[in-house]
């Protein structure tokens, strides 16, 4: 009796450890990625966070309203999503839409608190921050809807994660999409500056 109890206890504990391993890995990896990100910014090269990694940091995503920031990795292949959100589409330094996907259980869990009008910031390797404003959040069905990549305008940032947020099912068809667009404030600001100069 006590033996089977012990067995049950061990296996449950093991399950718990495996379950907790995912978020722990996500947190620890982000620390390592921070270092790799600093290094790739300093050297302007793709620097791998650990020698056997199949991915490298490409951007830093910050959500000022939620006080959260994370390093974005290249691609969503293989294990990369376990360490950080992955950039599905878009290259740094190039104009065009950026699509980033992340695990709803770890890095992209805060996405559910994002609301239209919230600010998002994306830092590229050169260290330049680009501001985005959340335009809308929506729920899509990944089985009948696709990301129409040709239709995304140049200044679009899509954040994708699984939906519903508290579901146990890892293979559900729904996705939560946050659509943000580049802020125009900057250009208006520069216009304002020019005005002052002209006034003088």
């Amino acid at each position, binding site marked *: 009796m006590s033996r089977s109890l012990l067995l049950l206890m061990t296996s449950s504990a093991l399950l718990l450890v495996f*379950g907790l*391993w*995912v978020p722990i890995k996500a947190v620890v990896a982000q620390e390592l990625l921070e270092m790799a990100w600093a290094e790739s910014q300093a050297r302007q090269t793709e620097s791998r966070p650990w020698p056997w990694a199949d991915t490298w940091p490409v951007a830093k995503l910050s959500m000022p309203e939620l006080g959260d920031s994370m390093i974005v990795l290249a691609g969503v292949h293989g294990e990369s999503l376990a360490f950080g959100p992955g950039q599905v589409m878009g290259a740094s330094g190039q104009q065009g839409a950026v699509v980033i996907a992340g695990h709803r259980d770890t890095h992209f869990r805060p996405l559910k608190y994002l609301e239209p009008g919230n600010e998002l910031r994306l830092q590229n390797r050169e260290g330049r921050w680009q501001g985005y404003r959340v335009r809308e959040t*929506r729920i*899509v069905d990944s089985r009948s809807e696709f990301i129409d*990549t040709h239709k995304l305008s140049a200044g679009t940032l899509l954040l994708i994660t699984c939906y519903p947020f*508290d*579901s146990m099912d*890892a293979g*559900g068809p729904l996705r939560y999409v946050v659509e943000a667009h580049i802020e125009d404030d900057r250009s208006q600001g520069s216009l304002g500056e020019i005005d002052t100069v002209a006034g003088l």
Partner: protein
Amino acid sequence: MMFSALSSQHSADRSLRVRRFMEGVSLWMAMLLVLFVQPLYAEASTGSEDSAGALHFVDGKGQWQKPALVLGSDFDVRVSGLIADSKLVRTFRNTSDQWREGVFVFPLPEKASVYGLTMKVGRRTIVGEVQPREEARKTYEKARDSGRHAATVEQQRPNLFTTRVANIPPGAAVSVELKYQQLVRYQNGVFELSVPTTLTPRYMPGAPLAVTPQQWQGGWAVPTAEVPDADAISPFTVDVADVAADSHRASVQFTIDAGLPLARVFSPSHEVATQQDGQVVTVLPQVGDIVMNRDFVLRWQPLAGQEPGAAVFHQQWEGEDFLLAMVLPGRAGKAHLSRELTFVIDTSGSMAGESIRQAREALQQGLETLAPGDRFNVIQFNSQPHALFMQPEMATANNLARARQYVSRLKADGGTEMAPALTLALQSQGRSTAELPGDESPEESTRVRQVVFMTDGAVGNESALFSQIRRQLGDHRLFTVAIGSAPNMHFMREASRWGRGSYTSVQDPADIRGPLARLFSAMEAPMLTDIEVSWPGQAVPTMADSFPRRPGDLFQGEPLLQVVRGVPPAGELRVSGRLPGGGKWQQSLDLQQAASGTGLNRYWAREKIDSLLDEARVEGQEPDKAKITKLAVEHSLMSPYTSFVAVDRTPARTSESVLVKEDLPTLLPAGSQPGMMRYPQTATFAPLLIALGLLGLLLCAAIALLQRRVYP
């Protein structure tokens, strides 16, 4: 003793403490579990509300729902001579317990004339009628809202239609029978008929228009500046596994009475079983019902030496004579032409999968046909065009090797921006001759300029592209090669017609060589130009009633087809043309030998409507809507401006029960990959593991506590 009492006291004390501790731990764990699992219940309870943005294929809990409507199709095609008459029955079976309205976007053959709609509800049959498009729409909506059975079919593109069926009772079925006819294609001694069953998702160029969602439409694409009806021609495409097991299946039957002995009947797309009864051949697919994810193509070949060289059919309809004539010019012989060949290959996302492999192979084969002295270039396009050479280069071994390597590395990805690719292909030669010094110009000027365009035609702005081809063509010839399981044949046919070339389709992935070899040999052979047709009784009004009004050039193996109204079957039809090198070719046909045909009036009317639409395009004006509507209503035909509608007299649905609209998805063409990016999988098993782990530990603690209570 004292010691032992003390120790037992101590152990009891300790066990009490342990028990307290255990109780505390399990309480905390229970708390954690509740905290963890609680949102799930919250989710489940709010999930029943309709969440914005979710499709109706997904229920409140986020689970995929198979469409409630099960779609069955039944094709009954009867071929008589050159005209194939089809009866297509679409059955919408409602498996839900709510009243449904079904909307289904489907393709028909590119030159189909739809001439009849009948709706069957239970034992009753309601015959539909042709009405101007807006009127038909209103009639249908009124019937739908008043709870009566109603069905309508609308033309979105010459080969794309939408059917709507209102008030399908719960657990019952409504079927819609569509009658259409099409011309059998005859080329190189082989007759061909294709029955499209699905469509390749089309690319919609242009910036999205900000419009409020309309009730009448529903698709994945939003209207754009260049394709204002994008949402009406973009049904959701799903995998076969996503629909019910008996949905999206079609039973197909062909009855062929070719009027001449046949050597064989075969299908490059499906395995077929044939049964011959005299001259009539019945063809059925071997598997029974086919999955509607690829075009059904059937070919038949007359006995060797019995291939028809000419044919005439006659029909009297409402006191008027209609004649359909086919003349096949004989072999004109081969002469070597020095050519300038531009291969344009579509590498857009819709070509991903089997299609791009086919296209690459076709292109490699095209490169093989180049002779020394020819010039060539390869242009690929998706969102942007990209050419292999700046200008067409000589077909030297070195250049060919470069081209082969270039082709083998082509990948399908991105949009389908055809317009810039066409501009590049049709203008590149003009630029190159301008850049070249004059020494080569005599040879350059006699060069035959040909463009081979390999694509699935999955675009929504066909009309604009045809206009562009007409404007930029110059002395080029444009040949289209249809790739994939469900290419847009309307685009292939019209693009090649405006491009003064011919079209071909690759249907059997295993046999790309056959059709392409015929196309390339036709391209190498000279063609018949300046074709003139004169019917007996040279009156001007008669001439105005024969179509196509200006026959295009004929390539080897292609027949000339003419349809005329108001000419009795007497006298002789004279056809003349100019052979390459200036020789004159002439042939006459005795009209008295005309066999009786059916549906010629509809074919004539369709040709006339097409010619009116062509004229409008040439002049860059709006088509004569009133004239087309009148013609279509007179011959009871579907057109861009007329739709069919059938309405039952008595209401079936009471106003209390609601009607749910359902847009039926179409199947993804076989072998193709979803053109657009799928959403990545972004969840882990962590929450499940954590929950299970907590649950297990909780159980352990509970058992341990129980044991302690039982054996203290």
